[in-house]
C-alpha cells in the first residue's frame, strides 16, 4: 500500500470534459509548442492544390496509387528512424542497410541450386537487419561513440557489403512472385472495402472500450462528440482512399503492410512499457536511469528496430523495382526517409513524435517527388525542393521548441 492511505475512490457517473475545456487544452498545447500534425496537414493541402493547378493529372486515381507505391518504402524506413530520433539519436546507415536487405532477399530467392522457401529468405533478411542494428547500438552505447559517427561508418561499410554481395552480377532480378506482389499486386476491390470497414470497426472498438474503462474508473473522458468525430473522420478518410484507388488498379498490398506496421509500432510506442521508456530516455536520460530503466538496452533495441524497418523498406523497394543492383540502398532513400520522419513532426531533439509522422512525412516527400516528376522537372529540382521542405520542417521544430522554452516548457 502507499504510505499515505488514499481516500476511497468515488466514481461519478462517467464524467466527460466539456468541448470548451477540450478546445482550451488543445490551444494550450499549440501555444506551448506542441503542434501535432497541424503544420503537416496544411502542407499536404498546399502541395495538392499547387500541383493540381500545374498539372491536372496529379489528383487522379491512377497517380494516387502510384504515390502510395512510391511513398511506401520511405514510410517504412522512416518508421524505424522515428525510434532513433525519439532517443535524440540519428541513423545515417538506413539507406544501405535497406540495400543489404533487398539484395539478401533477391539473392536467397535466386532459383539456382540452393532454393530456400520465400518465408525463410524474408526472415533471414529481417534477422540480418536486427543484427546490424543491434551491432550499431552496442557500439554506440558500450563503446560510447556518437550515433552520428557510428552510423556514418555504417553507411560506408554496408554500401561495401551491398557491392560484395552483388559481386560481378551487376543486376539481380527478383524471381519470387510473392515478394514482387508486395508492390505490384492489388487487394481485390471487395476485399479492400471489407479491410477498410474492419479497420474502422477496430478503431471504434478500441475507443469505446477505453471510454468504458475510464468511465468505470471515474476518470474524465474526452467529449463524446470528439470521440465520435474521430471515428467518423477515420471512416470518411479510409473510405475515400479505398473509393479512389478502386477506380484504378485498387489498393496495393504495400499500403496494407504500411497500415498494419503503423498500428503495430504505434501500439509498441504508446501502449507498452518499452515504448514509454523510449520517450523517457529521449526526454531525460538521467531521469530514466534513476527510474531504474536500462538506458543502453532501450537504445540498442531502438537501433535494431531502425535497421529492421530499413530492411523491410529495402525489400519493398526491391519488389517495386523487381530487381536489385549495385545502387541498391543508394540515391535518395536515406535522406528522403530521415526527411519524412522529421517533416512528419518527429523532433530532432528527442522525446517528441509519433509513428504516424513517418506516414505523413513520406506522403509529403512522395507527393513532391511525384508532382515535380509530372511537371517534367529534373532530379536536381526535386532535391532542391525537398531540401527546402526539410529545412522548413526543422525550422518549425526548432521554433516550436523555442515556444516551449518561452512558455517555461524547456
Amino acid at each position, binding site marked *: 500500500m502507499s*504510505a499515505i492511505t488514499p*481516500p476511497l475512490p468515488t466514481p461519478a457517473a462517467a464524467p466527460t470534459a466539456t468541448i470548451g475545456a477540450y478546445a482550451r487544452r488543445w490551444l494550450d498545447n499549440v501555444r506551448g509548442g506542441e503542434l501535432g500534425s497541424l503544420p503537416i496537414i496544411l502542407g499536404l493541402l498546399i502541395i495538392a492544390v499547387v500541383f493540381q493547378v500545374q498539372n491536372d493529372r496529379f489528383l487522379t486515381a491512377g497517380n494516387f496509387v502510384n504515390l502510395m507505391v512510391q511513398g511506401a518504402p520511405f514510410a517504412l524506413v522512416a518508421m524505424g528512424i522515428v525510434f532513433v530520433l525519439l532517443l535524440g539519436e540519428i541513423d545515417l546507415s538506413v539507406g544501405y542497410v535497406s540495400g543489404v536487405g533487398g539484395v539478401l532477399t533477391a539473392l536467397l530467392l535466386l532459383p539456382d541450386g540452393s532454393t530456400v522457401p520465400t518465408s525463410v529468405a524474408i526472415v533471414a533478411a529481417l534477422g540480418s537487419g536486427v543484427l546490424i542494428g543491434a551491432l550499431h547500438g552496442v557500439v554506440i552505447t558500450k563503446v560510447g561513440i556518437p550515433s552520428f559517427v557510428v552510423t556514418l561508418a555504417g553507411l560506408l561499410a554496408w554500401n561495401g557489403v551491398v557491392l560484395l554481395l552483388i559481386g560481378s552480377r551487376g543486376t539481380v532480378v527478383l524471381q519470387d512472385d510473392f515478394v514482387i506482389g508486395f508492390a505490384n499486386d492489388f487487394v481485390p476491390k471487395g476485399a479492400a472495402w471489407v479491410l477498410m470497414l474492419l479497420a474502422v470497426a477496430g478503431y471504434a472498438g478500441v475507443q469505446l472500450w477505453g471510454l468504458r474503462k475510464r468511465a468505470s474508473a471515474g476518470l474524465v473522458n474526452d467529449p463524446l462528440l470528439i470521440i465520435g468525430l474521430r471515428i467518423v473522420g477515420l471512416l470518411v478518410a479510409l473510405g475515400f482512399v479505398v473509393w479512389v484507388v478502386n477506380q484504378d488498379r485498387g489498393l496495393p498490398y504495400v499500403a496494407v503492410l504500411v497500415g498494419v506496421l503503423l498500428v503495430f509500432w504505434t501500439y509498441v510506442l504508446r501502449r507498452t512499457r518499452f515504448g514509454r521508456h523510449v520517450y523517457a530516455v529521449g526526454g531525460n536520460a538521467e531521469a530514466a536511469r534513476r527510474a531504474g530503466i536500462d538506458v543502453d538496452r532501450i537504445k540498442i533495441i531502438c537501433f535494431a528496430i531502425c535497421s529492421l524497418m530499413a530492411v523491410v523498406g529495402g525489400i519493398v523497394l526491391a519488389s517495386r523495382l523487381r530487381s536489385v543492383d549495385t545502387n541498391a540502398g543508394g540515391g535518395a532513400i536515406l535522406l528522403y526517409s530521415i526527411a519524412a520522419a522529421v517533416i512528419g513532426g518527429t523532433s530532432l531533439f528527442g522525446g517528441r513524435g509519433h509513428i504516424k509522422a513517418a506516414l505523413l512525412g513520406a506522403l509529403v516527400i512522395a507527393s513532391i517527388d511525384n508532382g515535380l516528376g509530372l511537371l517534367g522537372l529534373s532530379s536536381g529540382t526535386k532535391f532542391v525542393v525537398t531540401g527546402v521542405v526539410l529545412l522548413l520542417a526543422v525550422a518549425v521544430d526548432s521554433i516550436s521548441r523555442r515556444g*516551449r522554452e518561452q512558455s517555461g516548457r524547456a
Partner: protein
Amino acid sequence: MTETTDAGGSRERSPGAVPILELRGVSKRFGAVQALHEVNFDVRAGEVTALVGDNGAGKSVTIKCIAGIYPIDEGEILWDGRPVTISGPKDSAALGIEIVYQDLALADNLDVVQNMYLGREEVTPLRALDETKMERRCSETLASLSVTTIRSVRQTVAGLSGGQRQSIAVAKAVMWNSRLVILDEPTAALGVAQTRQVLDLVKRLAEQGLAVMLVSHNLHDIFEVADNITVLRLGQDVARFKTSETTQREVVEAITAGTLSTVPGQEEEVQA
C-alpha cells in the same frame, strides 16, 4: 543487493530502535576530489533527520551513494542493521528507499502520470500499459497529499511551475512501498505557501512511521521539522545534534568551522 526487505513489517517500529539506515565510514572519491571521507550517519523510522552543510559539502553525493548511483569506495551501508550492497536504483527501490533529487529528474516530455510511474508502469495481463489504473492512483495520491494546484494529471510536466514539479516529485516518492524518503533541497525553489505545504508533508510522512532524510540549506525549515541534524563539512561529518537540544547558531558554527578529522589538501580554500 545482498538483502531483501521483509515487506515493510517493521514500519511501526518505535523511534530509537535499530536505525533503518546507517552509514559507517563511507568514503567516495572522484579522481582527485575526495567527496566523502569516512562519513557516519543514521536515520530512524518515524523521525526526520536533516543533513546540512555548505555548497559542495557532499550532501548530494551522500544521497547518490545511498541510491546506488555512485558505488562507495570504502565503508559500509547497513539497512535494518544488516550490511547491504546497493548497486543501482533498482536495489535501493527494492529496499524501500525513495529519493527526490535536487534536480527532480522528471522527464519534461511525459505527463504527470507517466512521470510518477516511470520505470514501474502497471501493465494489464496482456502486457499493455494499464493507463486507467495508473491515472486513478496518481489522482488519489495527489489528492491525499492535498496537491490541488494541478489542473490535469495528463498535462506534460514541462508546463508545470517549480512548486508543482516539486509536489509531483514528492508524490512520486511516497506513492511506493517506501520506508525511507530522501528529499534533496525540497523547498529551495518554492514560494511561501508551497514551502509550507512541503514541510507539512514532510512532518506527515514521519508521523506515518516513515524515515525521512532531509537535505536543506534553510535552517529555519530544518528546525521546524527535523528531529536530528547531522552536519557535513568538506565531505566529513563534523557534528550531530538533537534539534530540541541545540540552536541555529551552534549548527551554523559547525557548518562553517566544524572540526575536521583530516584536513584535505588544496581544496580547503576552494570552499566558497
